[in-house]
């Protein structure tokens, strides 16, 4: 056997082994999530969430929403957030040095006045220029913090400094929340007296094409745009299967920056959001978990599968590319910063399973896929490829991709059934069928570009064009 054949076989069987391992993981995740979903649905059938809304013993929430150049939509967005069904609530809008008229519009619309309020700066942030409250008692829940621009993480930290309550919810200001979103988010924090619930993540769903009136979601519609529809599938797989399974294992590493609740004290004790990464949402969760592991205190990061938060996803390739590029950089930065966790027994499941999973299957997968694609071209050109083997491998992977999406569609139908029509199901299945050929290669390319950009030290969020309520939740 020549050395070329040995190298070739090593590569081919290396890829085969990797594919089988990753597929086995996905099968495990899919099956394992079912149990958790069923348990949640049963559990939920006994719960009357309204009792929290009227109880004086209910925990209070501080909702933090950073805003940067949101002048076009800010009034509507804040109105939507103020209408959330929860009594003990303060809404902190952090104007992160917007260059447009965001602050001016808020002052006018909500009759705000600057007030002398001492801010206990427990996390260092860019200077706060002023704190505003409304003269109108109707808006007594609203606090607007105006500060110098420091990025999303810095704005969230300013909100954490300002928050008066122990439970904080960090959201994207342009998200549309379900009316009972906070009632549902509060429950996990109150459920288990023996385990410290440090964070709770909520589902983020795609709002494109949905009917929204007065900041409320009125009708769920499957997006018309193909790019948005591909993302509907991605979100279904990620939230309904992936996160459910990781929640059951208590191994969640990511709570979407678009909608997540935290224990303020622990978030502050960990130093708040990191301003040195573009993946501040994932990084904070990893740091909080690490903090608890090092303290050797029992804790949990939970996840709620109910559709609670709706957001508009990019429908433009350029914006999608930037978003995925940023997610990739955020993942790598987080993994690098917490490399100590890698197969470190001291950190239990976090070190032995969650972190390695993210390293091998979230960070490495697109790189290997990109590398494999180049290899196929080289082998094909040099006549080294065994076409029968190649095609078998291709069909094997494609059939699994479709199977996994079809399973997510089935689970959606069995649980929340947001797209109940048979026509929508057909459209979703067709989307799942073409996704590996049309959308997936692009996502891989964006991730590879993210790696390259990080290597070339290009940081930053990039401009996000807002069309109504566009947002950037992270998935997987």
């Amino acid at each position: 056997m020549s050395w070329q054949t040995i190298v070739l076989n090593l590569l081919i069987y290396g890829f085969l082994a990797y594919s089988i391992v990753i597929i086995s993981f996905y099968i495990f995740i899919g099956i394992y999530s079912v149990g958790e979903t069923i348990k949640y649905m049963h559990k939920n059938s006994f719960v009357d969430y309204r009792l929290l809304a009227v109880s004086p013993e209910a925990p209070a929430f501080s909702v933090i929403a950073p805003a940067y150049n949101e002048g076009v939509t800010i009034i509507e967005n804040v109105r939507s957030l103020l209408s959330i069904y929860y009594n003990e609530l303060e809404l902190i809008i952090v104007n992160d040095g917007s260059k447009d008229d965001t602050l001016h519009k808020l002052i006018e619309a909500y009759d705000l006045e600057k007030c002398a309020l001492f801010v206990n700066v427990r996390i260092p942030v860019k200077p706060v220029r002023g704190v505003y409250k409304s003269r109108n008692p109707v808006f007594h829940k609203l606090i607007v913090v105006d500060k110098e621009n420091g990025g999303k993480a810095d704005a969230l930290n300013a909100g954490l400094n300002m928050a008066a309550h122990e439970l904080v919810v960090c959201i994207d200001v342009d998200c549309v929340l379900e009316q009972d979103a906070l009632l549902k988010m509060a429950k996990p924090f109150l459920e288990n007296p023996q385990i410290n619930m440090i964070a709770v993540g909520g589902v983020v769903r795609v709002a494109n094409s949905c009917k929204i009136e007065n900041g409320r979601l009125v009708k769920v519609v499957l997006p018309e745009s193909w790019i948005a529809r591909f993302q509907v599938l991605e979100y279904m797989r990620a939230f309904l299967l992936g996160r459910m399974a990781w929640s059951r294992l208590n191994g969640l590493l990511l709570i979407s920056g678009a909608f997540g609740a935290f224990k303020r004290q622990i978030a502050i004790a960990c130093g708040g959001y990191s301003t040195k990464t573009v993946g501040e949402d994932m990084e904070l969760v990893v740091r909080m978990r690490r903090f608890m592991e090092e303290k050797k205190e029992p804790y949990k990061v939970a996840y709620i599968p109910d559709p609670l938060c709706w957001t508009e996803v990019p429908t433009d390739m350029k914006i999608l590319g930037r978003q995925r590029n940023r997610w990739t950089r955020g993942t790598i930065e987080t993994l690098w910063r917490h490399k100590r966790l890698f197969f470190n027994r001291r950190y239990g499941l976090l070190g032995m399973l969650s972190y390695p999973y993210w390293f091998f299957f979230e960070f490495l997968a697109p790189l290997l896929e990109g590398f494999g694609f180049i290899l196929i071209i080289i082998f094909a050109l040099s006549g080294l490829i065994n076409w029968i083997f190649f095609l078998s491998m291709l069909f094997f992977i494609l059939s699994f991709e479709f199977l996994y999406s079809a399973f997510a569609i089935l689970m959606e139908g069995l649980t929340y059934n947001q797209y109940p029509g048979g026509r929508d199901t057909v459209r979703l299945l067709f989307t799942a069928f073409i996704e590996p050929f049309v959308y997936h290669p692009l996502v891989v390319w964006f991730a590879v570009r993210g790696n390259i950009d990080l290597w070339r030290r290009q940081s930053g969020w990039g401009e996000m064009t807002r069309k109504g309520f566009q947002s950037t939740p992270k998935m997987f």
Partner: protein
Amino acid sequence: MQVKFIGIHLLITLTVIFLMAILLIILSTFFYLLYKRKRSKQRDDLQRLFYLLIGKVIFNETVISEKGENNKRIIIPRKFQKKLKKRYARQVMKTVILDSKNNLTDAYGENLKILYNQTGLKKDALRNLYFDSRWYLKADAIQELSRMQQADCLHHIYRYVNHKNRYVRMEAESAMINLWGFRGLRFLNFIAYPISEWQQIKLLRQLAHFKYEEFKGIEKWLRSSNDSVVIFALKLVRVYHRFELYDAVKEVLLHPCADVRKNCIITLRNIYREDTALLLIKNYDQEGRDCKLAILDAMSEAGTEDVIPFLMEEIEHGDDEYKLKAANAIMVVKRGEGLQLLKSQPFAGSFPWNEIIVQLKGEEAG
């Protein structure tokens, strides 16, 4: 080449399995959608029919009394009886009765209870409670019996208060209160598992629906070995203003669990006496952050001139949260003179005091 053959063979086999699974999933998805649509139509039809019956039942149109008012019977037309033999129809009937019960006063609800018994739904619930091993059916049965005010089932339900499944015992605890009011609290005497905060909120909410009656046992619960029972007892003391239990609550300040002590501080703040402030600061140095902050908060309610020296020490604490809370307490205790006292301190002009004082000034003026 043999290795390659095995690889290809494996891949083809797995692909075929995946394709079969895809087919199965797609068929299941569509079958389920059809089934759901059919069920939804069936449910709507049944609901319409059952609401008609319930309307008649509520207004006594189909109720006959046998041997006095306490022996009522409902005439259920044959077509309903026939339908109610089917499991799904019984489920719909159950939902309809429960919904109607929720929306009616007790007087009208009595007939619904008779209907509930007569249709055998009560028997179904008891069967699920006793013989079904699935926790959610047990919990559902308890909730149903409780909502239907089946007080005679209390002896069936109370033993589930210590059930190994959290949700079953939560429903049993709620049912105890729902069916027995304040007397139902006696489950706290023998509960072995912790009561979650959620459940405590729920129980307090349920109690709020009952006319207050003096209930006994709090002293015992305050000494419980179950920390959550102690916390719940403290909440009962403060919600129902049980001032006479001050001495019993005071003893809880030495409880080994910090969370219990924090709740004790909050309760003492609600039922304070003249000596409360000094009592709270007695063990202040040994407390953790949460309890210390709770004590400083309590000073705004229970504080007296005697604690001013203590508060003056705390305003020099390294943590600004302590400073702010202590300053707030001084403002309350010194009434009108607090701001002057703070301004007269040597550090008053430096950060963060300059900002805190501006805020306090604004609050005083507002």
